[in-house]
C-alpha cells in the first residue's frame, strides 16, 4: 500500500510536501487540484491539527498515569484544594454528642469484657479450690483409714503376738535411750 500511495502523490507530492509545513491552514487551491480521494485524505490530515490547537486539552496527572512520587511536590505534602485550611473545630452539640456516643460505646464494651473476664477467672479459681479441697479430703480419709487399720492391728496384736512383738520393741527402746543427751 505504501508504494502505491507514493506513486499517486508523486506527481504533486512535491508541492504538497512543501505546502504542508509552510501553510498549515487548509487552502482552497490545494483542495481543487487534488482528486476527491486525495482531498479527503488531505482534509483529514490537515484539518486535524487546527482544532487541536484551539482546544488543546490539558491532561491531569492521573489520566496520564504519571507516578506520584516522580513529581515536584511530594505526594504527602500536597493538600486538596477547596478544603478549609487549618484545624476543624467541634463546637456544635450534635457532633459532640456523636463523638461522645462512640466513646461511650467503646468504653462500655471494654468494661463489659473486663467484667466477663473477671467472672470467668473467678469461676476457674473456685473450681480449682474445690478440686484442691476434694484432694485434701481424700488424703485425709486415706490417712484416717490407715490410722484405723494400724489401731486395729495393735489391738489384735497384744492378744496373739505379744511374745513375738516384744523382742522387736525391746531393741528400739535402747536406741531411743542412747540418743538422749543430758547435761549437768
Amino acid at each position, binding site marked *: 500500500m505504501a508504494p502505491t500511495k507514493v506513486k499517486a502523490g508523486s506527481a504533486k507530492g512535491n508541492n504538497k510536501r512543501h505546502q504542508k509545513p509552510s501553510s498549515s491552514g487548509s487552502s482552497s487551491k490545494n483542495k481543487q487540484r487534488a482528486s476527491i480521494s486525495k482531498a479527503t485524505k488531505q482534509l483529514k490530515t490537515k484539518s486535524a491539527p487546527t482544532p487541536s490547537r484551539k482546544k488543546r486539552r490539558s491532561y491531569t496527572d492521573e489520566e496520564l498515569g504519571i507516578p506520584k512520587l516522580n513529581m515536584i511536590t511530594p505526594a504527602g505534602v500536597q493538600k486538596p484544594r477547596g478544603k478549609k485550611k487549618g*484545624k*476543624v*473545630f*467541634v*463546637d456544635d*452539640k450534635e*457532633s*459532640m*454528642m456523636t*463523638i*461522645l456516643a*462512640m*466513646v*461511650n460505646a*467503646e*468504653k*462500655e464494651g471494654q*468494661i463489659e469484657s*473486663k*467484667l466477663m473476664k*473477671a467472672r470467668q477467672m*473467678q469461676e476457674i479459681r473456685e473450681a480449682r479450690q474445690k478440686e484442691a479441697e476434694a484432694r485434701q479430703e481424700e488424703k485425709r480419709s486415706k490417712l484416717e483409714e490407715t490410722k484405723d487399720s494400724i489401731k486395729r492391728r495393735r489391738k489384735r496384736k497384744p492378744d496373739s503376738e505379744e511374745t513375738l512383738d516384744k523382742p522387736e520393741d525391746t531393741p528400739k527402746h535402747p536406741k531411743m535411750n542412747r540418743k538422749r543427751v543430758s547435761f549437768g
Partner: protein
Amino acid sequence: MRPLTEIETQTLFRKLAQYTGPSLTHLISDSAANPTSKNPDRNVFRISGNRVYYVRESLANLATSVARHNLLSIGTCLGKFTKTGKFRLHITALDVIAPHARYKVWVKPNGEMPLLYGGNLVKAHIGRWSEDCPEHQEVVVLSMANDTPLGFGVTSRSSADARRAEPTAITVFRQADVGEYLREEDSLFTTT
C-alpha cells in the same frame, strides 16, 4: 482560646468516660439560664495553651476580649494535654466528674487524712465499694461521713478480690486528691 478539634474532643471524652458512666452526656446537654439573653446558656469546652476548660458559652465569648497571654484561667479547668497528645485530668475536674461517676469508693474517716496527704488507699480505710468493680478501673473516692468527693484513683484489685485481701493491702492507687489544692498551690493554676 479556641474550641477543641475532633481528635482533642475524642481524647478528652475518652478520659472522662473512664470515670463516668453514660450520664456524661449531661455535660454537653446541660444548660444554665442566661440573664442577658433569652436563650439558655450551654457549657462548652475551650482550650487555652494546653489546658482545657469547661465554661459557660457566654463567659467564653466574653473572654475573647482578654489577651491570650493575660488569660490565666476561665471556668473549670479539666486538665491539660501532654506533649504526646494524651490528656491528664487535674483535681479541679473532680466537681465535674463526681456527680456522674460510674464506680465510687467510700473512705472511712480514718482513711481521709492519709488520702489527702497523697497516700494510696489501703483496704482498712475503705468503708464501701460500688458493686462489681473490676480491677484497674478508674474510681471516684468519696468521704463516708458526708459523701464529699475527695479525689479519684485506680483500683488495684476487683471488689471481690479486695474482700479477701489483707487490711494493709493497697486497693486504690491515688491519682488526685483535694489536698493538692494546698500541696500544689504554686503550680496548679500556672500556665507556663
